């Protein structure tokens, strides 16, 4: 039985966009008891389809043709009032960021109750019973306490469970999940995915699951629809699409997914150490006027070596202290104790003035390519800023910038343009060029490919590996993504709650993880049984 049928859906984009339509003639269906994964890179129109189905498209994006049916009822012809009745009752949606999807000043229980009050005629006692039942069903511990909590008091995973409970409390026929696990840590992600599959089986729902992550697709999909720039590139059963893609674009995407198998290159323990941390710790103290001081250890006694021509990967979930470590090492923040040894100079205790001449020797690339470049400065100014700071004449700095643009595979004539004229991947290349302009010995990459689409990610990773080899750079690579770490790192340090729990050559850590936390991380990686990559 077909639950959702989308027939030739076309959604118009406002004039002046990069293409005339957000979604062009897309047709697919979701059957009962089926999970259909809608995969695509950013801007492929996957969220627009979800909004079109829910009738939540903004006025600037009108449906120009095509029809959408939910259980034989045409949604594209339904009134606003009818859509409102259907939303929540027959179809519901969960989002990427549960914190913004939940009302921060309402208790979770009251928000669940509201759904029932709006859509049913249940009395307070019956509503309360149903609320508790659904909270138990999404496997939240201590249901009574959860219902009394405000969203900010819960963890990301718990919030997403509350969202799922809200979406399912009326037993809808269709659940639309728009990147529901993208903001979550890998272990939490695994739990939420398992929960969605379990609930879908039990209730026989159809699920339209939107994601950019082929690992997640491999984990939960029955069928897969691949979107490219608003058009359906491929639609088929999961195994067929993943292992034998017919479309060239799908093939390229799947090949770009990094594998969990570590690359062959062994770690070279003989290479000279460029940077060594010794028992490096950073503790944050919340000094309250009236309250007691709160002490948060972000990183404790971290000792690692970064060697010339080698990449040390630091992996961990959010809050594990990996970014704190990176920012301590490049001295954007001051460590509380321990040493940071660059050759035999200890950076940890240096003042800003003492650090200045040394800064050119270590550089950092950040996660968010959209915020890493000053919007009011040209790319050329950004790349030349460092060399100019150290007295390189303007003509030489410009020449160096042009050379670096070529190195990162960009047009040297684009130096006069502003950051907003470039895509995310191009901006990240510019950031890499800016860091390299200082001719550093150590390059710290703090989640530098995490915000990029998978095909762009593969290119930037290849570029980083190439640059490291060519310039004999020592690289410290911070990431939450085990697949990425497996591809680029020679050595891996696994961090949990500010401490390093496992540290060794990448192939050993990935093949025979010793620490239970590393084992848990690897086990949670979505699609781990599936061999991606070329």
């Amino acid at each position: 039985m077909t639950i959702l049928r989308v027939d030739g859906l076309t959604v118009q984009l406002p004039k002046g966009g990069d293409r005339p339509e957000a979604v062009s003639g897309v047709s697919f269906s979701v059957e009962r008891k089926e999970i259909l994964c809608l995969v695509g890179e950013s801007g492929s129109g996957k969220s627009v389809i979800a909004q079109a189905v829910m009738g939540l498209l903004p006025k600037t994006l009108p449906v120009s043709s095509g029809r959408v049916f939910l259980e034989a009822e045409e949604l594209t012809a339904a009134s606003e009032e009818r859509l409102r009745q259907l939303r929540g009752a027959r179809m519901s949606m969960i989002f990427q960021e549960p914190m913004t999807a939940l009302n921060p000043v309402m208790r979770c229980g009251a928000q669940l109750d509201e759904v029932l009050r709006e859509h049913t005629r249940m009395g307070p006692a019956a509503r309360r019973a149903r609320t508790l039942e659904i909270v138990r069903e999404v496997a939240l511990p201590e249901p009574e306490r959860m219902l009394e909590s405000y969203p900010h008091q819960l963890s990301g995973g718990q919030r997403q469970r509350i969202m799922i409970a809200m979406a399912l409390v009326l037993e809808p026929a269709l659940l639309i999940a728009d990147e529901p696990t993208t903001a979550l840590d890998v272990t939490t992600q695994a739990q939420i995915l398992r929960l969605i599959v379990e609930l879908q089986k039990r209730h026989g729902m159809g699920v339209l699951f939107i994601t950019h992550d082929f690992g997640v697709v491999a984990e939960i999909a029955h069928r897969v629809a691949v979107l490219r720039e608003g058009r359906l590139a491929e639609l088929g059963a999961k195994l067929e699409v993943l292992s034998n893609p017919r479309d060239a674009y799908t093939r390229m995407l799947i090949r770009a997914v990094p594998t969990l198998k570590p690359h062959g290159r062994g770690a070279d323990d003989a290479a000279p150490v460029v940077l060594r941390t010794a028992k490096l710790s950073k503790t944050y103290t919340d000094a309250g006027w009236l309250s007691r001081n709160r002490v948060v250890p972000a990183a404790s006694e971290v000792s690692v070596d970064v060697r010339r021509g080698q990449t040390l990967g630091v992996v961990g979930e959010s809050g594990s202290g990996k970014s704190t470590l990176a920012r301590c090492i490049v001295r954007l923040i001051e460590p509380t104790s321990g040493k940071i040894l660059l050759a035999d100079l200890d950076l940890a205790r240096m003042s800003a003035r003492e650090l200045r001449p040394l800064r050119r020797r270590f550089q950092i690339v950040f996660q968010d390519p959209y915020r890493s470049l000053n919007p009011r400065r040209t790319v050329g100014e950004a790349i030349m800023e460092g060399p100019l700071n150290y007295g390189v004449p303007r003509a030489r700095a410009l020449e160096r910038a042009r050379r670096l643009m070529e190195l990162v595979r960009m047009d040297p004539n684009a130096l006069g343009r502003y950051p907003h004229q470039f895509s995310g991947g191009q901006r990240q290349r510019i950031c890499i060029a800016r860091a390299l302009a200082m001719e550093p010995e150590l390059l710290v990459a703090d989640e530098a490919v995490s915000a990029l689409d998978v095909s762009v990610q593969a290119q930037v990773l290849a570029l980083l590996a190439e640059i490291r080899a060519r310039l004999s750079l020592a690289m410290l690579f911070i990431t939450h993504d085990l697949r990425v770490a497996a591809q680029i790192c020679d050595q891996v340090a696994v961090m949990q709650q500010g401490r390093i729990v496992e540290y060794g050559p990448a192939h050993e850590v990935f093949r025979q993880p010793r620490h239970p936390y590393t084992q848990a991380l690897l086990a949670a990686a979505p699609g781990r049984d599936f061999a991606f990559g070329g």
Partner: protein
Amino acid sequence: MRVLQSWSVRIGGAALLALLLIALAAPWLGTVDPTLFDAASRDLRPGEAGEITTLEGETLKHVFLMGSDSFGRDVYSRVVYGTRVSLLVGISAALLALAFGVILGLVAGYVRALDGPLMRVMDGIMAIPAILIAIALVALWRASLPTVIIAIAIPEIPRVTRLVRALTLSIREEPYVEAAVALGTPAGRIMLGHILPNTVAPLLVQATYTCAFAILLEAILSFLGVGLPPDIPTWGNIMAEGRVQFVAYPHNVFFPGIFLAVTVLAVNILGDGLRDTLDPKMAKRV
């Protein structure tokens, strides 16, 4: 230009431009020297004809478009020349407050150690009503154009400082500022080269509000008789002189009042328009 598509910007800007032209072209708009008086032409109604004596003792025929005051001075000429004073005071005071506020705000936001002391001083200034500070300062220094401008600018500095500090605090956390730190860029250049250019939009909006308030404050000071000396034609002075005879000759208060209201309104409309186009996030909140 996206900014020029906003009707608020167009209307406010056009009105201000017109006022600016009036101020610049004051001598050629059928005015006479605003300080001239003639005992024979006292308290004329708007539109009445009379005569006026120049400094050389010549007597001219003159139509008093907005009437005359109790000294026989031409209100129209005084109002038109008053535009000069009002705009000059408004714009200079806004620029002055902006200059100091930007420097103090950048320092307070970027140099942690100075944040507390600086902002407590600013809080202190903000705790005293602006008009009291201005009156006290003018009384201290003797009223003249520069002292009035400074006296009006000083109570406005904390507002600008607070805005710039708040912006600096958020911008300094942006990765591109951290990248500049990592690139060894000195603190001064980070503040002026990276942070300041990204505060321009909200600052421009704040500048218009400061300007409107400065114009109003100047008029208030003059009206209370603690602003510019009465021989200088300002809207506040004209209204102050007209106040006594308001019931009999309302035009003395009415015409400068209209000019003042239109000017302040135009500046505020311009500011709202700028805010909506330059800073859509802020517009939604208000």
